């Protein structure tokens, strides 16, 4: 084990500066559970609990890596306070907006009446400047959730925090200690400028493109057929995430990698980590070298425990894992999916320890499978006789066959996946050959049988569409700004929603107000989630009981995709009475 003495010295300096009072105003403030060294959340009461919870939204400075920038926060911290509730209670959340613009807070994953869901223009008008709005609803569930603004770019600016609900009875997961771990992406650029840059030059933040030098060095191993196909399609095989480490500092509980957030434990304890991906534009690969993770819940819902070494976590997904650390320190690594940077924290028996931090791994490169050309893309072209013939077939394949889809294929749709496939058994981009166990959706099995045993009566197809070059994102070829027809469900209707990803990006799709069952082959015990990653060139289905009357948002949780138009309103009717 090597210890990064440089970082420790740096931290010591920071601490000395804080003690001396110098620069105190620039240092980030954290809620107790997220402070630089914390014994965890169990038996702490600095979190917000009870029936009346007061939250203040305001501007403020945020510092990381020695720089300070403008942020929008809840109660002055990034992340915001941990809201800790109990199943069965009622809660009133009073949100005081001190900004000069509208705000809102969406309770991500909570089953609430539609008018309390917090999406301006869908569920309510929003919270006007210098006014207070009170959300009130009963708590009908337990698990790990979070909250964030649904207004403008406030989430990117820091308006998010964790929300944990303890079960009414005994917790079915046994653990000695817990830590809440909020992953996020911080930028000193103005969020509007992120969008502007992407519209000006879609690959602006990608500093890991293929180059002639890398090719000569034998890196970026692509078959000639793949290389030609991507160039012909005007698609960049290294376009993995739109905003990258070139703009982001990846935070763990508000701490940059050098600030080393440390979660304490006693060796041998069962430690529950409640991991929330609160990032605006980053899908993370999470691992703790040397420490297997036993996944016990996803999106707040229990799953049959499954032990893995790495988990890809899409924006807005949450995972509860149990780890049992021994002596010594461990690095908790949240590597951005495109490997352009990482968030690093430490789990240790004592404050001030640091384990080896693994270097960034080689960034992944997209394949024809990600282009929706099916599984044959996984074969090795060129080495076998069949390779050439297959490459020719690929070359002839129509990558924008309008007859394959039931919507108008316009400027905003640069590709129609010719052979999209079920990828629920895939670990996520770049993790196919990680060399250890990586969680896939097929590994998730609900711990309790799915409550609604009815077979879905119809399928609703949702086509995820985009234009990478113009940074346009849409559903069924239409942006929300084009006032598309909502997706309509009858109340209590049992329906299968099949999302088809015609783009080469992973989209974490989130449906408000409902849990759905991810169709992964474990019929009857499908994992229950509120957000599901749809891999490039993939189809992903979920079964839904549309039991929450009202209007709801359905969108990609890559926030700039949502703002570019990848969003729909979902209606559930009738409002009263029992249909179906």
């Amino acid at each position: 084990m090597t210890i990064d003495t440089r970082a420790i010295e740096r931290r010591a300096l920071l601490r000395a500066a804080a003690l001396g009072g110098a620069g105190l105003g620039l240092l980030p403030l954290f809620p107790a559970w997220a402070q630089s060294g914390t014994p965890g959340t169990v038996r702490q009461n600095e979190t917000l609990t009870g029936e009346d919870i007061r939250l203040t939204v305001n501007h403020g400075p945020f510092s990381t890596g020695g720089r300070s920038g403008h942020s929008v926060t809840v109660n002055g911290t990034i992340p915001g306070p941990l809201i800790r509730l109990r199943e069965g209670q009622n809660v009133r959340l009073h949100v005081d907006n001190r900004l000069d613009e509208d705000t809102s807070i969406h309770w991500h994953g909570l089953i609430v009446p539609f008018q309390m869901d917090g999406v301006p223009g869908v569920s309510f008008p929003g919270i006007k400047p210098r006014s207070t709005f009170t959300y009130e609803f009963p708590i009908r569930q337990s698990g790990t959730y979070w909250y964030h603004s649904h207004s403008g770019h406030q989430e990117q600016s820091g308006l998010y925090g964790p929300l944990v609900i303890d079960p009414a009875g005994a917790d079915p997961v046994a653990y000695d200690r817990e830590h809440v771990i909020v992953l996020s992406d911080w930028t000193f650029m103005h969020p509007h400028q992120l969008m502007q840059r992407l519209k000006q030059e879609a690959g602006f933040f990608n500093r890991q493109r293929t180059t002639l030098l890398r090719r000569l060095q034998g890196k970026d191993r692509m078959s000639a057929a793949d290389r030609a196909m991507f160039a012909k399609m005007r698609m960049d095989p290294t376009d993995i995430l739109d905003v990258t480490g070139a703009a982001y500092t990846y935070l763990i509980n508000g701490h940059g990698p050098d600030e080393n957030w440390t979660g304490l434990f006693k060796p041998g304890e069962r430690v529950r980590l409640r991991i929330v991906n609160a990032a605006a534009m980053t899908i993370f690969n999470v691992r703790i070298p040397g420490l297997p993770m036993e996944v016990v819940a996803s999106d707040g819902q229990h799953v049959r425990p499954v032990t893995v070494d790495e988990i890809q976590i899409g924006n807005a997904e949450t995972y509860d894992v149990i780890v049992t650390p021994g002596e010594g320190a461990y690095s908790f690594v949240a590597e951005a999916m495109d490997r352009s940077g990482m968030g690093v924290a430490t789990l240790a028996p004592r404050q001030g320890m640091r384990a080896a931090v693994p270097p960034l791994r080689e960034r992944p490169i997209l394949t024809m499978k990600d282009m929706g050309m099916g599984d044959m893309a996984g074969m090795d072209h060129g080495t076998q006789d069949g390779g050439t013939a297959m490459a020719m077939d690929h070359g002839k394949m129509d990558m924008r066959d309008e007859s394959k889809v039931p919507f108008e294929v316009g400027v905003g749709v640069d590709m129609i996946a010719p052979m999209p496939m079920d990828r629920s058994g895939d670990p996520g981009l770049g993790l196919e050959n990680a060399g250890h166990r990586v969680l896939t959706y097929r590994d998730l099995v609900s711990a309790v049988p799915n409550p609604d045993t009815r077979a879905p009566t119809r399928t609703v197809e949702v086509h995820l569409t985009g234009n990478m070059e113009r940074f346009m994102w849409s559903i069924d070829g239409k942006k929300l700004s084009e006032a598309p027809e909502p997706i309509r469900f009858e109340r209590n209707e049992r329906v299968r929603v099949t999302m088809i990803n015609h783009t080469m990006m992973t989209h974490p799709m989130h449906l408000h107000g409902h849990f759905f069952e991810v169709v992964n082959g474990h019929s009857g015990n499908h994992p229950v989630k509120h957000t599901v990653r749809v891999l490039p060139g993939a189809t992903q289905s979920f079964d839904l009981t549309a039991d929450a009357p009202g209007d709801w948002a359905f969108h990609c949780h890559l926030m700039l995709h949502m703002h570019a138009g990848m969003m729909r309103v979902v209606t559930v009717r009738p409002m009263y009475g029992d249909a179906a």
Partner: protein
Amino acid sequence: MKRLILLLALGVSAPALAQHQGHGAHQSAPPAEAPDPHAGHVMPKAAPAPAPPADPHAGHHMPEAAPADPHAGHHMPEAPSADPHAGHHMPEAAPADPHAGHDMAKSAPPVAPPPAAALSGPAHAADAVYGAEAMAPARAVLREEHGRIRTGKVLIDRLEYRSRKGRDGFAWDAEGWYGGDIDKLKLKSEGEGAFGERLEHGEAQALWSHAIDPWFDLQLGLRQDFGQGPDRTHLALGVQGLAPYWFELDAAAFVSTKGDVTARVEAEYDLRLTGKLILQPEAELQFSLQDVPELRIGSGLSTAEAGLRLRYQVKPEFSPYLGVEYQRGFGDTARLRRTAGDDAGGWSLLLGVRAWF
């Protein structure tokens, strides 16, 4: 109840395991845990790819059962043309069905429109709670902020010093735009000259740029020339965009107020040598339908140029470069140049910057 028993069982077995690991080789691969019935699923490679069934199209025929117009008979009050299911003809997608052979596909229900009851009730649920007056502006903002993004860019593609036979010169090529995804106002300007002489040629264009496919824009507008010879005004019509294999193309035809018809095609390509070093070959051809002696333009292919610029990307928005360019006149253009005592063409060494914001 079943849930409780299962989880209690886990609760008992797991800490024992944990204790064991806590004192020993916790870094070795953990044993397959008895309570985990999915041990076989942990390895991604183990995900079973089911053998295709005898009939790979099993289950694919159901969309055909849907009526040609699934919305026939439904009252669709709002923009029925926006309905994604209008004119649905999914059977074509059959080979793309990812569920072929998967057990869950066997029960995949048909694609169908929503039941009638789903269309009942208020158009906007929140209006009943917060009032339509409060919700209508919020809905307008929602739409505005989810897809209607307007932005702009100024690109100075070339601003260069040209070292050549005779007097050294300079050249620029810049454009700017503002607008949304489909429609933009586009301004372009280019020109060249020699130091200490009157500007050889300069022009500015103001264009309406309209996206016609994912990569190309149609452009229509006016071009004003200035520099040596008479200053002409042209109507400009062109296409600009990204061609397959990453070629940037800009092609336009011009009709001057004197009735002269000319055309121009430019192509360039960025070859990334390293993350910061980019080699850009570029070519431009100009054509004319007629001789325009006062501008020293001959009919047919009038001029051609080919350039090679090597730029160093200090940051994506700023790159100084070095380059060479060869330019010459053809046919009558060459003759007109020689008559004036100039060479038909020649080489230039270039030193310049590319910048955008």
